């Protein structure tokens, strides 16, 4: 393994900067300048291209193969959306232009994208209005929690607590906490969904809201959802919908019609924008009518003549959550995707996502334990408890899948299932791909009985084997600092 800094050759250059001819001496006091240049690598353009091409060979994306990472909705990302995002009319548009006097007329196309995307998402989610500002799913959750706080402040409610089920994503409690709320955890029942009786005992006047994922992280739709919403609303609490699993419901069920007041959607999941190895994503937030006045500033509005403007005069707004209008180029991609699907396409997305997940579940349930043996929605959750008894844990199954050419499923989540293996195939995968994955999973299940040691040695096809995470955390080396300093302790 060689770092890009290790390949540096003093004096070598890649990109040449243009016309330095305006003057020689730097027009800034010497005292304000750094002592030595930043120790960035010195390479040719070809050196740089080869370095990163080599690194890309040590990676795996949806375009490489099957990526059933549960809760992450790793569907195919249509290429035309990327092309559109690079059109100069969008890519070169400075975000401050609409803040200039007379600037709004110069950004009408971009404002139309924001407004229309909001309209489509509102229709899909049964909400009154959306903001595109939140920059990721968790950022949407924080925005939602801030809207909950603004609502209660406006009503004069003294609320301190947000309730979150034990099966929730970790971002839910973290987001509620940094918005200033106490978090209480609601247990799940034997059916894998939130325990309504437990919830009833926890709902009191201190409850500001409940954050739920629906279907939940076990891929289960809670048919008591309306009762839960009524219960929460009875103390003037708000229902927050974590849209991580919206891919299961598109066109079949709208969060706003089953009792939810606030929704975030992950455009990098349901709406097919690329995940980029960990981002950027986008987490637009939608609200019902009575909460629209609390949405972040600015808000895209339309004049009577149909032209758009940005409204900054929002006295009850929670304020700015992003510098401008969100991760615009991501919103744009999602808009292109929705335009291509149309109403019919959206329905087919969720139907095929749900069918693919149920197919994988049906084919594997003879081989792995199924904690909740019921029809799932867009993802299914197995437990490797049976295999763990033979010494092969979920993590080993994951690594064995890598050697068989697949990206592993999510493991050890949700926390409510021991040795959890959460599989989300998505609608874009073919039956042939699913069958190949199923065969690999069955072969691994057989090997746990006949040759577990072979599985414990996985992966063997990758540039490195299982890495020592304890060492990484105990003696952290998080940067190579160059000649002057050393990154090691």
């Amino acid at each position, binding site marked *: 393994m060689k770092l890009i800094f290790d390949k540096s050759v003093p004096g070598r250059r890649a*990109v040449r900067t243009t016309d330095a001819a305006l003057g020689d001496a730097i027009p800034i006091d010497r005292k304000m300048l750094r002592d030595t240049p930043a120790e960035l690598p010195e390479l040719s353009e070809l050196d740089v291209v080869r370095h990163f091409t080599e690194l890309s060979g040590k990676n795996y994306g949806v375009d490489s193969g099957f990526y059933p990472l549960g809760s992450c909705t790793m569907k195919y990302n249509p290429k035309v959306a990327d092309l559109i995002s690079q059109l100069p009319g969008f890519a070169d548009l400075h975000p401050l232009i609409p*803040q200039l006097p007379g600037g709004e007329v110069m950004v009408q196309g971009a404002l139309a994208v924001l407004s229309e995307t909001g309209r489509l998402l509102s229709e899909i989610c049964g909400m009154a209005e959306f903001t595109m500002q939140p920059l990721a799913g968790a*950022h949407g959750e924080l925005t939602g929690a801030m809207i909950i706080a603004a609502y209660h402040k406006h009503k004069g409610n003294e609320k301190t607590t947000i309730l979150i089920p034990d099966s929730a994503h*970790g971002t839910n409690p973290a987001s509620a*906490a940094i918005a200033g709320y106490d978090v209480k955890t609601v247990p799940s029942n034997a059916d894998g969904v939130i325990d309504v009786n437990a919830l009833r005992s926890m709902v009191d006047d201190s409850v500001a809201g409940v954050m739920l994922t629906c279907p939940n992280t076990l891929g289960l739709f809670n048919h008591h959802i309306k009762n839960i919403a009524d219960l929460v609303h009875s103390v003037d609490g708000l229902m927050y919908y974590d849209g991580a699993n919206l891919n299961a419901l598109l066109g079949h069920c709208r969060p706003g019609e089953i009792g939810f007041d606030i929704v975030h959607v992950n455009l990098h999941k349901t709406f097919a924008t690329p995940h980029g190895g960990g981002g950027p994503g986008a987490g637009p937030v939608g609200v019902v009518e009575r909460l629209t006045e609390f949405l972040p500033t600015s808000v895209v509005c339309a004049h009577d003549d149909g032209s758009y403007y940005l409204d900054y005069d929002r006295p009850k707004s929670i304020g700015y959550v992003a510098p401008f209008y969100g991760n615009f180029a991501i919103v744009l991609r999602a808009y292109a995707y929705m335009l291509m699907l149309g109403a019919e396409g959206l329905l087919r997305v969720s139907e095929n996502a749900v069918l693919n997940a149920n197919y994988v579940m049906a084919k594997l349930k003879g081989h792995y334990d199924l904690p909740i043996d019921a029809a799932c929605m867009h993802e299914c959750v197995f437990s490797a408890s049976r295999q763990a008894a033979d010494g092969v844990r979920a993590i080993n199954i994951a690594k064995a899948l890598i050697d068989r050419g697949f990206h592993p499923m999510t493991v050890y989540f949700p926390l409510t299932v021991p040795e959890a293996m959460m599989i989300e195939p998505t609608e874009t995968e073919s039956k042939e791909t699913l069958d190949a994955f199923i065969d690999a999973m069955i072969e691994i299940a057989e090997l746990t009985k006949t040759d577990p040691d072979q599985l414990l040695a996985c992966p063997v096809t990758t540039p490195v084997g299982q890495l020592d995470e304890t060492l990484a955390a105990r003696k952290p080396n998080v940067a190579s600092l160059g000649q002057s300093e050393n990154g090691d302790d």
Partner: protein
Amino acid sequence: MPFIANTDAQRQEMLAAVGAESVEDLFANIPPELRCKGLDIPPGLTEQEVRNQLAGLAEHNSSGLISFLGGGFYDHFIPAALNTIVSRSEFYTAYTPYQPEISQGTLQAIYEYQSAICRLTGMEAANASLYDGGTAVYEAIMMSLRVTGRRKVLVDDSVSPIYRKMVRSYTSNLGIDLMETQSREGLPDRKAIADQIDDDTAAVIVQNPNFFGCIDDVTDLAEMVHARGGLLIVSCYPISLGLLKTPGEMNADIVVGEGQSLGMSVSFGGPYLGFMATRRKYLRKMPGRIVGLTVDAQGREGFVLTLQAREQHIRREKATSNICTNQGLCALTSLVYMSLLGKQGLAELSGICAHKADYARDLLLKIPGVTIRFPGRWYFNEFVLNLPMAADKVIRGLFNRGLAAGFPLGRYFPEMNNCLLVAVTEKRTKEEIDFLAHSLEVML
């Protein structure tokens, strides 16, 4: 249907395997009264139709202006090799690197990014990215509260007004004593800060170059803050660090900033890149993902996400931050950009920006009635002019000549209605700068 592979025949086979008669059966768990009655969304379009429609919308935007707009978001030249590398789908279509053995590409790139950010800022540890420069300032404030156990924060008003608004939104329910100090003649006022700082001050936040484009040496401020047991947070513009004294050299404790200028287009507001770096001693207090170097059983070096005990998926409501998805691909973009520019290239680029701004400033100040707002200060590539009339009016007038002349400071500073913030990057040619000066002179 677009992007769905299975045929009707395959769906029938799969339904048989599942034991369902129709796909509809699989939605039986949703009670009928909770089902959607239909979406009011038009039929789907073909790829060609969508491309044409959106190209039409793109043309409704005026992206062809000769722009002197900055304000924290800058139009720098982007080398072609950058897009080629970043578009590689092994990077582009991967998720967060939860499985390190097949994510060494992303992980090594992030480690190198963290290293490059440290080298650029003069710090010792960086995280894998935050959403943008504004959320990075907010995260730095939250981190300073964790480090010091205190509740009071001073933000100078020479920090971007957009970021100050964001910080105010985020902290309004948290019982934090967030105070603004008033800058003096374009720089943080040492006396005002000394008067307001006390033993409950967790951090002082400044920006360099600041929102007015003025450069400062804040070594003395670091000393003042440290003497009271607080931290100095510096927000900075990474291109300027090709030349300027680093926050590390000035003894800052947390360095943040907007990384957009490192190879990302302005894209009407995002995606951008929040970066954060700090001292090693505060590593475990940092928010966000961090990549570390380690070894496998055979002693081969490799990279993993590390110190995850700080994060939401482990610590839930006790995590240092709620961040999960970050700006991974933007971090990669900035690393590729810094690699293509290189050690000499970034220093040179930084110098060109400073020179061009210097040339523009000299020329504009020759126009009768135009003066510099903060005389005696040093500037990098942005500066504030006093105009003999409202900046709004000037901007409107110059739009007609195809110029975005700058940002009118009156929008955020009511007493500065006649002030124009002008930014110059290497993309602006001498002819364009001359045209701006000529057009402004004609107008005044």
